[in-house]
């Protein structure tokens, strides 16, 4: 059965009906992964840890700004560089999703505040806001369009996709979902809550931006959605609006405990399913969230 997508039903100036959760809402055009053990997609796919663990470079950021960026922002920028081969970074919307944001910068500021006398670094203070990475990306890419920065605990990744799909529904053709976290400083975070650095980036494209696209309903044809008449770069996968489904369990990723604890580990769940071309629902949290899931399908080669 071929059905219209959510993105085409709202051009009459009236409010639409709820989006059918089984209909793909966007295509994943690019994917980037950065963790100290897996500093890139190929390392992630092979699950071969880099020795010694890597440090993020933040290569997308101009050198003058790069010297001062946090590990989280640097990791996000490295994953962005890998995911954005098909993206126009100067015109692409971006959603940054991080449960904790720039807490490593916050820790440094609190150290400065409690020193005698207190003397805060103005640069560190200005870089302590959650949207630091979002602002730096816009500066680095001269992008004056829309970007945002959000958090939702263990549902942060799901929230990022919900916001991103809303932006695509509103008319944007491309949006980057940048998920990442680093749970520190140690003085504030209990050992059993500390989570290692990670960043995963998905480049989403609206289906209406893929030429003459028709997409099957994945509830009736779960393994054979077709992108008909599409001549551009092929999507890695298609995904639906997230819905809650407590019957879906998080996958076993075979990663260290401190990475599995990350509030954004759901992004690795999705990266794993995309790279393994695994059809069906994927849970966007590690088990501690509200069980938001998106359903993946894969375009059949023409």
């Amino acid at each position, binding site marked *: 059965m071929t059905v219209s997508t959510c993105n085409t039903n709202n051009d009459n100036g009236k*409010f639409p009906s709820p989006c059918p959760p089984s209909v793909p809402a966007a295509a994943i055009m690019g994917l980037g992964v950065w963790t100290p053990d897996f500093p890139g997609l190929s390392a992630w796919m092979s699950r071969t840890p880099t020795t010694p663990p890597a440090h993020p470079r933040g290569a997308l950021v101009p050198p003058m700004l790069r010297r001062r960026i946090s590990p989280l922002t640097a990791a996000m920028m490295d994953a962005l560089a890998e995911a954005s081969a098909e993206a126009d970074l100067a015109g692409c919307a971006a959603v940054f999703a991080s449960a904790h944001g720039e807490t490593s910068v916050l820790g440094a500021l609190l150290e400065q505040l409690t020193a005698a006398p207190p003397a805060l670094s103005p640069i560190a203070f200005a870089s302590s806001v959650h949207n630091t990475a979002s602002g730096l990306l816009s500066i680095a890419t001269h992008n004056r369009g829309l970007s945002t920065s959000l958090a939702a605990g263990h549902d942060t990744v799901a929230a990022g996709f919900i916001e991103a799909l809303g932006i695509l529904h509103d008319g944007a053709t491309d949006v980057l979902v940048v998920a990442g976290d680093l749970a520190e400083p140690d003085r*504030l975070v209990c050992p059993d809550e500390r989570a290692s650095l990670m960043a995963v980036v998905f480049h989403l494209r609206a289906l209406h931006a893929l030429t003459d696209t028709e997409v099957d309903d994945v509830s009736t044809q779960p393994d054979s959605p077709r992108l008909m008449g599409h001549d551009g770069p092929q999507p890695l996968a298609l995904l639906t609006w997230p819905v809650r489904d407590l019957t879906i369990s998080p996958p076993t990723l075979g990663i260290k405990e401190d990475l599995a604890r990350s509030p954004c580990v759901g992004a690795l769940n999705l990266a794993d399913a995309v790279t393994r071309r695994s059809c069906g629902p994927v849970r966007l949290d590690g088990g501690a969230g509200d069980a938001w899931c998106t359903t993946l399908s894969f375009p059949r080669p023409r």
Partner: protein
Amino acid sequence: MNPLTMTHPVSNLQIPTRPALWVTHYTMCSALGTGRPAHLAALAAERTGLIPVQGSLPFQTACGIVSCELPALPPALAHHDARITRLIAHLVADLGDAIPQTLSRWGPARVGIFVGTSTAGIASTEAAWRAHVATGALPPEYDFAAQHSYGAIIPVIRALTGFAGPAFVTSTACSSSAKVLASATRLIHAGVIDAALVGGADTLCDLTLHGFHALGALSATPCRPFAATRDGISIGEGGGLMLVARDGEGRARVLAVGETNDAHHISAPHPEGAGARAAMQAALAIAGVKPSDVGHINAHGTGTILNDRAESQAIEAVFGRDVPVLSTKAYTGHMLGAAGVIETALTVMALEEGWIPASLGAGPVDEAITIGIVHTRTRLDRGLAMTNSLAFGGSNVSVLLGAA
């Protein structure tokens, strides 16, 4: 061109024009008090809530402090107890029957929750850090994830309201709680939800005051946005909540939200306000209205030399010199992530009441600022008004509102 589409001024995309959302209820809490009546009275009397700060600060400043008692959270939510969650709970309580009415009308899963904050549970974290420095241990009641984290507000709101739709916290510094209006608008238009609780909160702490002082942006006296003698901001704390829905008995309409980036500097505005100008133009274009339809602008107007000059240039470029402009920062202080929703609520109030408050402390206006700053209570003679929120990271948001 399809008459139901517009050209986005930044992306050049053809975007369908959208039906407006209704603001069905709202409340706010600041140094002026709690709720609409307290804020209306203060603005009518041109009374500031800013007071000199006493205490251990090694510099002088004035702040807007929430002085009412903020009751502890219910026992089931005690692990989330922090000043910011208490402030949010206080606002939920002030919305009263509007919460169950919304729940009954739309159903729990069809009401989203989108709130903004810049500093989250920083007040609790700062106290916990100081305790750790002094004693080597965190206070036993401190919980980083449940009290400090940005998302900690969400389970508190869910438990107090029963709203079960999509929920997240937006944190884009001083535009946070204006940006959530865009998120709610998008998801209602997409059919994902029918209504949303939007808003935000931020609380005072030493870190924020020291940080703005380090930037050289903090005034020693109550701030004076747009004035020739202005020398910086005054920090305030506060919060606001607003119920919006696709239809209903509304107090005002959210016509459009324009969002842009400066792409210029992490903490300084574009010198000519290019990003702010584009945000205002985007909001006008999305709503399909002319600049001359707008009768009032509640500016971001922080009181710093650079912000006020850049924003006034942007306003003049879009609206000319005649549109009446005020900043309410001299009443409340700059409430950071909470400023957007509270200033949106104050703009709704202006549309409801039909008058624009005086821009407190603005006279004599900087000669370089040539827009129409209002010095006395002024009649609002058109049905549309706009409010701007401009933030660190270059994040700009303009909310266009219409009278009911």
